[in-house]
């Protein structure tokens, strides 16, 4: 079950994706695609209903100006469970999904029944997607069966809501652990019932731990997804989160997805960016190309 990972090669390979030159029309297309894949996220103690409503407005229409063809909405808004209802109401009929972190995010250090209840409530409140955290303490102590069993139970509670499993790779120390956790997460999710394409995602990080998403870590996870697809024909989704702040980085990730998994994964139903500041950087590039003028920070809403 344990597959070794060649760290040096993974880093080399990941670096190579960042050297592609993507300009003009391909850049426009790439940026629009990236925008449509963003899970616009706010996960702070100071989040208020009004802030979430503002974020939802931005999610539906990322920029107020006119641009032809119109910019896509982002994929989802990601909030804490207590704000799911607010987001659900604000996004009604827009096609933008509501994602909720749950299971005692970000640490996951709560009794299992509390974590499962967390998921239930978020689903009841209307969450379309649940971002769960795995039990890293158990994983690092080698209690893989505990980790797997918990994931299986969470997925059962999710019902029809899609599940994103956060590995928190910044706490897993090695790429081999990342690979092992990815395989474990996918298998545990599959254990609770058949998976249709895009129903289960694996996600790098909570965004609360440094390092968050990096290209090598994402590459290892994409390779696990590729192998699982080859074995079973089932398409698992991928979501790097945290630390992706610039449009350029986003394009590098898209190149990596395309060259590892192929065009099929270049859709928001199989690939997401967990980010907040990325949105404005993508917009900045798109608007600059549209108007021919460099933009100012005050041209875009903060949310």
């Amino acid at each position, binding site marked *: 079950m344990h597959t070794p990972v060649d760290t040096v090669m993974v880093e080399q390979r990941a670096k190579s994706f960042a050297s592609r030159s993507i300009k003009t029309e391909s850049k426009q297309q790439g940026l629009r695609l990236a925008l449509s894949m963003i899970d616009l996220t706010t996960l702070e103690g100071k989040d208020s209903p009004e802030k979430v409503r503002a974020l939802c407005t931005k999610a539906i229409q990322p920029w107020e100006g006119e641009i032809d063809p119109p910019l896509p909405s982002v994929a989802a808004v990601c909030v804490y469970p207590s704000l799911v209802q607010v987001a659900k109401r604000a996004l009604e009929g827009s096609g933008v999904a509501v994602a909720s972190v749950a299971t005692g995010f970000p640490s996951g250090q709560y009794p299992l029944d509390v974590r499962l209840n967390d998921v239930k409530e978020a689903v009841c409140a209307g969450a379309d997607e649940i971002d769960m955290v795995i039990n890293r303490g158990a994983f690092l102590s080698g209690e893989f069966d505990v980790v797997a069993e918990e994931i299986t139970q969470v997925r059962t509670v999710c019902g029809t809501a899609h599940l994103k499993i956060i590995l928190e790779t910044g706490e897993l120390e090695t790429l081999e652990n990342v690979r092992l956790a990815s395989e474990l997460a996918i298998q545990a999710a599959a254990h609770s019932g058949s998976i249709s394409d895009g129903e289960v995602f694996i996600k790098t990080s909570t965004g609360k731990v440094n390092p968050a998403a990096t290209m090598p870590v994402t590459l290892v996870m994409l390779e696990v997804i590729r192998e699982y697809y080859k074995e079973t024909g089932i398409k698992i989704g991928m979501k790097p989160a945290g630390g992706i702040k610039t449009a350029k980085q986003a394009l590098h990730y898209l190149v990596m997805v395309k060259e590892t998994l192929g065009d099929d994964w270049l859709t928001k139903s199989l690939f997401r960016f967990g980010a907040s500041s990325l949105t404005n950087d993508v917009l900045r590039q798109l608007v600059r190309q549209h108007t*021919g*003028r*460099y*933009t*100012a*920070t005050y*041209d875009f809403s903060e949310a």
Partner: protein
Amino acid sequence: MSRLTVPKTYKLYIGGKFPRTESGRSIAIENQKSEIVAHICHGSRKDFRNAVESAHKAFDSWSGITGYLRGQILYRMAEMLEGRKEEFAAAIQVTQPVTNAVARKEVDASVDRLVTFAGWTDKYQQVIGCANPVAGSYYNFTIPQPQGVVVAIAPQSPSLLGLITCIGAPICSGNTVVALGSEVHPITTAIFGEVCQTSDVPAGVINLLTGKNKELLEHIATHRQVAGLYVANPTKKNRTLLEEGSADSMKRVHCVAFDESDWYDNAVTASPWEIEPFVEMKTIWHPSAC
């Protein structure tokens, strides 16, 4: 065998670092005997964009410190420049047919110019701000505040004194600057970055570009993050281009037409009225004690 000289390749100064231009272009600098003595960076619009970003980042802290502290930092710059007088005098003479005495005079005036602006940092407010007379139990003040990122387009000559004046006026009140040095005498601009970096000026407050202004003018005018322009001796055509481009983001465009002797005159180029074009006036009322 005679030794091969190693001519210096000057770089840009952006965000406290010395990057090469992202375009990879350079311009050979010839001395008056038409020998190539150095290369300077031929900056591009992307270098300009990066410089504006650095300047924008530096604005909050630079405008947030006291005028007194800004004055001390400007004075420190003057000290550093004074210590490198010979180098700057020599740099002026590479491309300009002037005597050592004339070059020294320009460097001296540049040091003094920095000291003048250092003095104004905590005094110009009293000159251009005011306490307004009101008929009520409150006070009413008008106080100047810096605008943000200012682009300074320096005169061709005097290359050092002109550059320092165009930078000094906006940074005095807390603006941050992206400056385009003299196109025909660019070496002083390139070395001035070394003065900035070794004095206490925070990274991003002063950013220096060299190259061809013509290809940058349109981007400067239309960049929405830029709040003001200080333009030395523009042609009529360039002035129109800058003013039209600035209309969209409502930049202040401050064009000056100074001759050589004006640049040396503190009363003309370093008065509070040269600081005033780069501030916004804020009027506030405040309840009085009784």
